Each structure stands twice: as structure tokens, then as C-alpha cells.
């Protein structure tokens, strides 16, 4: 076993695990996998995968500019890896976006349905064009290996300079336009990160990050393959980055001073702490490290310095991309483990492709070799089972694929069950109504209660009409209230506890005592509830399907029951205000919704109330007129 093999196995493990989680995301949706909400729609995936990915790819345009335009020939060994990283970075961005988009299959829409006023439109096109250019810029390298494609390669080489120029232009545009994206949300972003010159700041930091990413990558891959590190080149990159970082720092300081935000920097809130640490990690420490010549030449210092810039700038993107909006939106977002896993998986997959490409194509003058993949090294044995794993390259494939399969399976095992609806509809077990003559219905205890004149309704309907509303009575009860079956505020529940009936700790009934013997055990062959519970009165059942025993949600139950009768009675008694929301909801909901829009709190329940669809057009048109008046008032 060796360094490269171990690293690859770890990367395969992460990728496999993330693949299973990713499957979960595509089957069950964002709600089941992420902690994102309507007020925090951009989380880790945007902050890290997309914003961070684009920023990490900045090495591509920085190195090509240095090499082709400034003609600094000595940087030649770094150009190809940098372009490759940029390409893979953008691929990772696209992959990350596919996870984040609610309807990923619509990603092609922006190609056809143009909306040139949208910053996202610009960002999307930049990503698309720049990835295409990067592909053209990089493809001569793999094509080199196949003489068949010599013509295509020559053609591409002829236009290389054009691609390089286009690439530099596009990514300059794109790095800064990611900044402009946030110009449209001045009230959401924390003032320390919001700035009118956000595009410029993004561009400057991308240049610094690009330089240091190239340095870091060179150090890391040379460590991995046990080659002599390119210390002198990294040193030169370090010298350059001091300048860029200094300009960035000055711009930032001036910006803060001009906006009069210096007090916010020092006010001791968690944002100020994050801001100060970001400045120190991404700017000040690296400047110190790379301006002292002795440190600049030291390989350990190079590791630390380049990592600090990379980490600090990605941290900056995460901050701008969502973290620092939290105090303003009042949300509490922490990425779910599944979001983190998928982010890591995207990075690992990109790293695996990177390693594959540098092993198989001429990225460096001297191709690195995974020692186990040389054709004449002795065959490899699996030390645990002493099994011969085939020729060395077959052996590594065997190991990697096994790692992938096993971690994928573990990921599948950890998939959460019964979370199909995610956070969108909250899982709230209702509590019973209080009061005797006037019931206070407050299922989810949010104090938006409905005061229900129970006694009046009995008087109106007659004492013998209880079953109109109390349509089902559980065994050994005389009457049951709504909350006993409609146990969930917003979701339907299966109130027939099948497994409970058939288990020894429950009703302890044998299967064939309910299902006819000698026939398939299914709904059709099952006995009906009334066969054992004669008190159940299904004839009065209001909305019961006879086979599927589902109790609709508490909210829906009330709306269907109360509102439909009120619609009818409103007509009969000619009291149109009976159909209005506010005849029951005395607390003004509109105020609450308005409050909600100020991003103070999230009350997802307002999204999920479904009013019954009653075909009373006359009433409905009048209601909407009434409502309009209401809102005008």
C-alpha cells in the first residue's frame, strides 16, 4: 500500500457514500435532504460548491494570463495543471448546481428562454461558455495520446491563443458577476460583506485565490507522488500574491471606512468575529508569510500560507453566499449531514478525475505513476484474505470498486425513511381543543386559534346530529374528538394501525383472522373494521374511502367539515360573511403573512393549507369581492 493508493481509496469511499446520498436527493427531493427553507434557499451547496468551485478555478485564467500574455516562460509547468483544475472546478460547479436546482432537468432553459435582466442568467451563460472554452483549451492534452486525432489537435492548437484570450475575458467577467449577483440583495446580506464594489472585491480575491490554489495543488500532488516539490515556482507565486492581497486588503479597508462600518467590525457580534478571522486567515497571515523571504522559501510555510488563502477565500464565498444572511433573515440554517456529504463527494470525484488525468496524460513533463500500476511490479495480494487480486492495475480497480460499493451501501442504509416530504410540511402532532361550550381549537399551539361555538352548533343542528361531525368512534368510546384520528396538523396519517393489530405487543391477532385464508393477503381480502368494531358507523362517514384507511390532516379535516357547511348555510341564511376566513380566524392572518415576508420568522404552515374546492361559483365570486374589500381596508 502506498500514499496514492490510500488517498484514492479514501476518495472512492467518500464518492461512493455521496453517490448514495445523491440518489436520495434525486428520488426524494431537496426537502428530504437539505435544511434549506424558503428564506434560506441558498446554503452550503451554493456557498461551497458553486461559489467556492468557481473561485478555486480562478487558477486557470491567472496562470494562462501570466504565461501567455505576460510571457513568463518559467511558469510553464504550472499552466496545464491550472487549466485542468479550472475545467474540473467548473464541472464540479455544474454538478453541484444540478443537486441544488429544484428542477435540475430544466437546466437547459436558460439557453432558449432568455432573461437578460437576471444576474443569474449572466452567471449561467458565463459558466457554460467558459466551460466550453476550457474544454477546447485543454483537449489538445488528452488528444496528444492518440495519433488518430492529430488533425483535430492541430486545429485546436492553431486557435489556442484565441481560446486563452476568450477564457481570460470570460472568467474575469464571471468572477466579478458572481459578486454582482449579490448587489441585488443589499437588505439580505450583512453590511460587512455587502458592498457596492462587491464585483471588484470578488475579482481581486479570485486572482489571489487562483495563484494560491495552483501553488497548493502543486505542493499537494508532488507530495502525493513523492516528487521533488516546485519550491522556487511556489516562491514566485508567493511574491506575486503579496501584491494582490495587499491591493485587496486596501480596497476592503477603504470600502469599510467609506461605508462607515468600522463600528460594526468591532461590535463583538459573531459576524464581526467571522469577519475579522476571515481577514486574518485569508489576507494578513499569508501576506506576512510570503513577504518574509526566509519563510517564503520554506516548504512548510508555503503549505500553510497557500492553504490559508484557499481556505480563507472559500470561507469568504460561503459567508457571502448565505452564512451571513442568517441574522437578517432570522433563520437558523445549519447544513444537514447530507448536504455536507454531497459537497465532499463532488470534490472527491473531481480529485479522482484530476489524479486520473495526470497519471494518464502529459500534464507534467514527467508523468507520475501510481507505483502499483506499473506493468512489471510484483502482483498485489490482499493481505487480509491472501487472495491474489490480479495484475497490479486490476488489483487497484478491484480495491477501488469495492470501496465504492461498500460505502455506497452504507449510504443507502443511512437514508432516512419516511422523510419523503422533508421540511416543506412540518410534522406537527396536534393537541386537543380546550373549553366546553366554546372550544378553542389550537392544534399546533401557535395561538392562531379558532374559537368554535360548540354548544351553539349543537343547538342549531339538534342533539341527535353528533355523527354529522363525529363520524367515527373508536372502540370502547362513546364519542371521539377530531384530534384522536386526525393526529397530524398538515399531513394525512394512516389511522388503521395494521402492524399494531398483527403484533404480539398490540392486538395479537393472527393474519388469517382478518385476511381470508388461502387467498392473497391484501386489502381486498381483508375484513372490514365493522366486522370487529360494530360501533363504527361508516354510513355516516364523511370523507372515508372504504379501502384505504387514511385520516386527512387536522387542518384539512376542519376546513372540509366547517367550511363546506358554512358555504351552504351562508346561502340558506343569506349571511355571506360566514364564508369568510375571518369568521373563524379572528386573528388577522394577513398581518402574520406580512410579518413573514419581512424574513423575521418562517411559518411554513401558510403554504400548506388546502381549502376545499366547492362548486359554488356565485359564493366564491362574492367571497373574492369581499376579500378584496378586506384587503383594501
Amino acid at each position: 500500500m502506498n500514499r496514492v493508493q490510500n488517498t484514492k481509496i479514501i476518495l472512492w469511499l467518500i464518492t461512493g457514500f455521496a453517490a448514495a446520498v445523491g440518489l436520495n436527493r434525486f428520488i426524494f427531493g431537496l426537502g428530504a435532504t437539505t435544511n434549506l427553507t424558503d428564506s434560506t434557499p441558498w446554503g452550503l451547496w451554493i456557498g461551497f460548491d458553486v461559489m467556492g468551485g468557481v473561485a478555486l478555478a480562478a487558477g486557470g485564467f491567472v496562470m494562462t494570463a501570466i504565461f501567455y500574455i505576460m510571457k513568463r516562460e518559467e511558469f510553464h509547468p504550472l499552466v496545464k495543471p491550472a487549466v485542468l483544475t479550472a475545467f474540473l472546478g467548473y464541472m464540479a460547479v455544474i454538478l453541484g448546481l444540478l443537486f441544488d436546482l429544484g428542477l435540475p432537468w430544466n437546466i437547459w432553459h436558460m439557453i432558449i428562454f432568455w432573461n437578460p435582466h437576471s444576474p443569474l442568467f449572466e452567471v449561467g451563460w458565463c459558466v457554460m461558455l467558459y466551460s466550453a472554452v476550457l474544454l477546447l483549451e485543454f483537449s489538445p492534452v488528452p488528444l496528444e495520446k492518440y495519433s488518430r486525432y492529430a488533425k483535430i489537435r492541430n486545429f485546436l492548437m492553431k486557435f489556442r491563443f484565441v481560446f486563452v484570450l476568450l477564457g481570460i475575458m470570460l472568467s474575469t467577467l464571471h468572477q466579478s458577476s458572481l459578486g454582482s449577483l449579490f448587489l441585488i440583495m443589499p437588505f439580505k446580506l450583512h453590511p460587512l460583506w455587502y458592498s457596492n464594489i462587491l464585483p471588484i472585491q470578488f475579482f481581486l480575491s479570485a486572482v489571489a485565490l487562483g495563484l494560491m490554489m495552483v501553488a497548493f495543488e502543486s505542493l499537494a500532488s508532488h507530495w502525493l507522488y513523492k516528487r521533488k516539490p516546485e519550491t522556487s515556482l511556489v516562491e514566485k507565486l508567493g511574491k506575486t500574491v503579496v501584491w494582490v492581497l495587499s491591493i485587496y486588503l486596501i480596497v476592503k479597508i477603504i470600502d469599510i471606512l467609506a461605508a462607515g462600518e468600522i463600528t460594526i467590525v468591532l461590535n463583538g457580534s459573531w459576524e464581526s468575529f467571522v469577519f475579522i478571522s476571515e481577514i486574518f486567515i485569508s489576507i494578513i497571515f499569508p501576506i506576512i508569510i510570503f513577504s518574509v523571504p526566509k519563510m517564503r522559501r520554506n516548504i512548510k510555510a508555503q503549505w500553510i500560507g497557500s492553504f490559508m488563502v484557499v481556505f480563507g477565500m472559500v470561507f469568504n464565498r460561503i459567508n457571502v453566499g448565505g452564512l451571513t444572511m442568517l441574522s437578517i433573515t432570522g433563520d437558523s440554517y445549519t447544513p444537514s449531514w447530507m448536504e455536507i456529504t454531497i459537497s465532499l463527494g463532488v470534490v472527491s470525484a473531481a480529485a479522482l478525475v484530476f489524479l486520473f488525468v495526470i497519471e494518464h496524460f502529459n500534464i507534467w513533463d514527467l508523468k507520475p505513476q501510481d507505483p502499483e500500476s506499473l506493468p512489471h511490479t510484483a502482483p498485489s495480494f490482499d493481505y487480509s484474505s491472501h487472495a491474489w487480486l490480479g495484475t497490479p492495475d486490476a488489483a487497484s480497480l478491484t480495491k477501488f470498486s469495492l470501496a465504492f460499493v461498500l460505502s455506497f451501501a452504507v449510504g443507502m442504509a443511512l437514508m432516512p425513511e419516511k422523510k419523503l416530504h422533508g421540511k416543506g410540511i412540518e410534522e406537527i402532532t396536534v393537541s386537543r381543543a380546550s373549553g366546553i361550550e366554546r372550544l378553542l381549537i389550537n392544534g399546533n399551539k401557535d395561538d392562531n386559534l379558532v374559537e368554535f361555538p360548540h354548544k351553539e352548533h349543537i343547538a342549531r343542528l339538534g342533539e341527535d346530529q353528533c355523527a354529522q361531525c363525529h363520524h367515527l368512534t373508536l372502540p370502547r368510546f362513546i364519542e371521539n374528538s377530531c384530534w384522536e384520528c386526525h393526529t397530524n396538523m398538515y399531513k394525512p396519517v394512516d389511522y388503521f394501525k395494521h402492524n399494531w393489530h398483527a403484533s404480539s405487543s398490540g392486538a395479537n391477532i393472527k393474519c388469517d383472522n382478518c385476511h381470508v385464508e388461502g387467498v392473497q393477503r391484501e386489502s381486498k381480502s381483508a375484513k372490514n373494521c365493522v366486522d370487529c368494531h360494530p360501533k363504527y358507523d361508516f354510513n355516516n362517514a364523511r370523507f372515508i374511502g372504504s379501502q384505504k384507511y387514511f385520516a386527512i390532516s387536522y387542518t384539512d379535516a376542519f376546513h372540509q367539515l366547517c367550511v363546506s357547511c358554512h358555504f351552504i348555510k351562508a346561502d340558506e341564511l343569506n349571511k355571506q360573511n360566514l364564508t369568510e376566513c375571518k369568521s373563524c380566524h379572528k386573528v388577522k392572518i394577513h398581518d402574520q403573512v406580512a410579518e413573514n415576508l419581512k424574513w423575521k420568522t418562517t411559518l411554513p404552515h401558510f403554504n400548506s393549507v388546502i381549502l376545499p374546492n366547492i362548486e359554488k361559483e356565485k359564493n366564491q365570486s362574492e367571497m373574492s369581492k369581499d376579500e378584496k374589500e378586506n384587503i383594501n381596508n
Partner: protein
Amino acid sequence: MESWLEFAKGPLFRLTFAIMLLGLIRIFMLDIWGIYKAYRKAGDKNMPWKLVLSRGLEWFFPVNRVARNRPFYSTFSTLFHIGLLVVPIFLYAHVKQWEKSIGISWITLPFDWAYWLTISTIVFAIALLMGRMFNKSSSFLSRKQDYLWPILLLIPFITGFVCAHLNVNPTYYQFFMLMHVLSGNLIFILIPFTKIAHCVLMPLSQVVCTIAWKFPPETDEAVCSTLNKKGAAV
């Protein structure tokens, strides 16, 4: 026991099923890759593809030359395999589980068919096991796992039958169901790593055999030198 059952039907099932599915795909791909490598090294690249295909197909059907040697064995084996594959895939109760968890369902076995197929699979499995034990030449060739596999395969069939057709009380039902699901899960894990992998590798075996005859004459020496045993007898 209920929570154990819940665990075995949920997370554990997903784990083992994923291992089986991906594991089978994995060894299939590795095999194809190995065949491709071997093919590139073969001295004579004229592969009799048609012959390979017809030989391969011949193995799938019970009426072939081999069957004439051991007619009982091959009939029993074929019938056993039919039940082994059809029952777990198309059983109504199994399909219902899929429908509940991921919402996909497919055609199911009628009740009586499931009943008779299960019984026949159990009977044929026992017959095959007996054959292996009492036939001298096959017991000489058998390893431990060759006896263990039929026994392991019998467990889910017998426990499943008990649950589905004997009206046992809930405690026994849950116990047998737990054994059923656990043994099923064990089978899933073992499939890609043991001889049962033949379910996907079988179609490739003819190709592998044929390629082996096509290696250049001095291949054995190359093998020896790779193993650092130059000059050793092959």
C-alpha cells in the same frame, strides 16, 4: 423483536441489497475489463464469436449435451433455479414492500403459484443437496460452501412459507419473519463474493475459455517471468 424486524427490513435491507446489486455490476465490469485486456494480448485475434454465443446459449437450456449425461440433476437444477429466481422477485408480499418504500411495483405471482413454486423449490433444493452428498463423484468435488449454500437458501423459503401459509400466532410470525429477512439479507451480502456470482458471470465464461486458447505460444514463459520464477515448470 418488532424493532429488530423494522431494522432488518429497513436500513439493513438497503445495505445488503445495494451491496448485492452494485457488487454484481462491479464483478461483471471487472470481468469484462479483464476479458478486454486478455483479448488485446491474445496472439490469434480471430474469435469464433458465433460459436461462443451458441455454446453460451446452450448452457442456459436444460436440453443439451450435458443434460444427457446427468438428466435428473439438470432437470432438478433447472426447476430449482426457476423457483429460486421467480418467487422472491414476483411474490406479492415482496412487491408490496417495494411499492411502499419507493413506489415501484410490477406483476405478481398468483397466490397458488407462489404456494406450489415455494414447495417445489424447497423439495428440489433438498434433492440437490442429497444428490451432492450421496453421489461419490460430486461429493469428492464439493467444498464446504457447496453444502452450505443450499441450506442457507432453504431458510428464507421455509420461513417465508411458514409465515405466508401457516396461520401462526403473531409471536411466531414475527420470529419467523425476522429469520426470513435476516437470512435473505445474508444471502444478498454473500452473492457477489461467492460462487453465486455465477448469475452474472455465467454468460461470460465461454468467452473467457475461448480467449484462453488464443494466447500466443510463449505466454507461459511470460507468466513465469512476471512471477519471478523463470524456468520453473508450468
